[in-house]
């Protein structure tokens, strides 16, 4: 189902959480709302879900205005960062909750719950209580619970935020597969650009209650609309007054036209990737990112004088051969 957010504003006291936000989520897509904390992304998700009410503006599901509809009547599935598991119920009863509320026949509930437990790999844990599960298992249970009612829209509020890095990576891949199989329109809130890039088809980058840019992961990374987006979705460095990606900085031992002299301050080896910290003539610090091969070829060491050059194109763009976003780009500079 398609979601339209139309000129939505929301204030909490004096704090402006959302100001005049308009967003369109196409049917069947997996979209991410990406932004730092306080950017309004969770508030926007909660407004779509009916857990908050906007001060002004409208929310439409499949063209139908649901702005004043209760969450119960929206046909949504909502997954919370801290699972919101019903602590006193077994895993099975948690998943069955929405179906019991809908007074479905018992055999139907049982077969549907069995199916969902198998889907999320919790069949063996069906009679346990949530506190006996790991964080990742609890979140999979919460997803099964949300999916049980066959929601038209799945809303995920930082669903992997409370999990270990390895579990998070596993669940991300799992969520993407699940979405590809089930095709439910899904909106994911995250502050982790790598997560957004890995999972989502479309990313809306938010900052200070506004949407800065909407686009595919590739567009957001390669053609950021604003300095904020550029800085948020990948590492950045300032060079010659311009914001550039460290992996777009070319480093050479020979002076060329438009290059700047710099001194190597540190060479940081991170396996395949090598980060170079450079001091420019004005005392400014810049960063470059090279491969191990490039670094070895240049025989870079601390104190060396090199010549650096921003990409020819003043608007930052990735040249051919740049590794795909999300693999080479470090989460933060």
């Amino acid at each position: 189902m398609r979601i339209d957010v139309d000129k939505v504003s929301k204030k909490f006291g004096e704090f402006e959480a959302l100001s005049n936000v308009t967003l369109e989520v196409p049917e069947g897509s997996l979209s991410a709302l990406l932004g730092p904390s306080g950017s309004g992304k969770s508030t926007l998700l909660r407004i779509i879900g009916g857990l908050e009410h906007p001060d002004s503006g409208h929310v439409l599901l499949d063209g139908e205005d649901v702005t004043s509809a209760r969450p119960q009547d929206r046909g949504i599935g909502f997954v919370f960062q801290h699972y919101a598991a019903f602590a006193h119920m077994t895993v099975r009863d948690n998943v069955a909750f929405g179906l019991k509320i809908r007074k479905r026949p018992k055999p139907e509930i049982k077969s549907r719950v069995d199916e969902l437990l198998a889907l999320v790999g919790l069949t063996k844990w069906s009679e346990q209580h949530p506190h006996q599960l790991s964080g990742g298992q609890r979140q999979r249970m919460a997803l099964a619970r949300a999916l049980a009612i066959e929601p038209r829209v799945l809303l995920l509020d930082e669903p992997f935020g409370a999990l270990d890095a390895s579990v998070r990576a596993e669940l991300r891949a799992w969520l993407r597969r699940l979405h590809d199989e089930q095709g439910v329109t899904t909106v994911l809130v995250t502050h982790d650009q790598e997560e957004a890039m890995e999972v989502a088809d479309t990313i809306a980058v938010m900052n200070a209650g506004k949407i800065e840019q909407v686009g595919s992961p590739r567009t957001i990374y390669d053609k950021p609309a604003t300095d904020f987006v550029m800085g948020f979705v990948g590492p950045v460095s300032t060079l010659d007054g311009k914001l550039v990606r460290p992996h777009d900085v070319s480093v050479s031992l020979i002076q060329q036209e438009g290059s700047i002299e710099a001194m190597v301050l540190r060479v940081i080896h991170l396996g395949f990737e090598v980060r170079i910290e450079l001091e420019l003539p004005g005392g400014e610090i810049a960063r470059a990112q090279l491969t191990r091969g490039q670094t070895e070829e240049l025989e870079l060491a601390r104190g060396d004088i090199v010549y650096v050059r921003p990409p020819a194109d003043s608007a930052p763009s990735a040249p051919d051969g740049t590794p795909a976003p999300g693999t080479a780009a470090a989460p933060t500079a």
Partner: protein
Amino acid sequence: MLVSRRAKLSLRGIALLYLLLLLLIPVGAIFARTFEHGIGTAWSWVTTPAAVSAFWLSVVIALIAVPLNTIFGVGAALLLARSKVRGRKLLDALIDLPFVVSPVIVGLALLLVYGQGGWFGNWFINHGIRIIYAVPGMVIATVFVSLPFVVREVAPVLLEAGDEQEQAAATLGASGWQTFWRVTLPSIRWGVAYGVVLTTARALGEIGAVAVVSSNVAGSTLTLPLLVSQRDQTIGAGQITGAYAAATELAVMSLIVLLAMTFLGPRRAR
């Protein structure tokens, strides 16, 4: 805080000594005095018509006051922990009033309002309803003094549990009422149970406010604590033993309430 073994032992010693001097020895003394003339004598004192009537009156008052305060307490706790309505702070402060106001004052205040010549008193008297110097006044007084316990036990539990489970229930289609019965109440049940135990103990033991609005007639408006007090002040053969016997009966009732809670205790951790 790091405490040495020795300090730990002496702290434990002081705590035990304190309890022994202030609690165990006096209560133990009552038990001892109750049975100094034999179990038969003690039993006869708690089975007199006045004692049986006092026992049932105490039970009936508790049976009215405890459910009322449980319903009110859970509702008020929900209001304090979940809503953002104006006047919430005022409600929060008012709920502690019975803790800070002396029960005697509560009794006198009830006299002023419901007694003869009081604000509502004449209306009730004209309609043939006796509140003051009768059981209804004693119930009101008990409700008043035992009001804060459930609220004060449940509100922190609600705050700690947070409202995410309730939001999740709403997104899954549950109405407010369904969410309350299926999600909220089960998650606060031990807080409610503990509040009920404290309310019951207080309702059974209350004397100050109840004494003011009771006519103190044995067999009709005496609760167990009032009976203890009356026997204690009456000069007569063995009256004091009767007071001890009724006091022991009251203590045993409280102990049963306490034990019920202790047996439920292990389930509380779940």
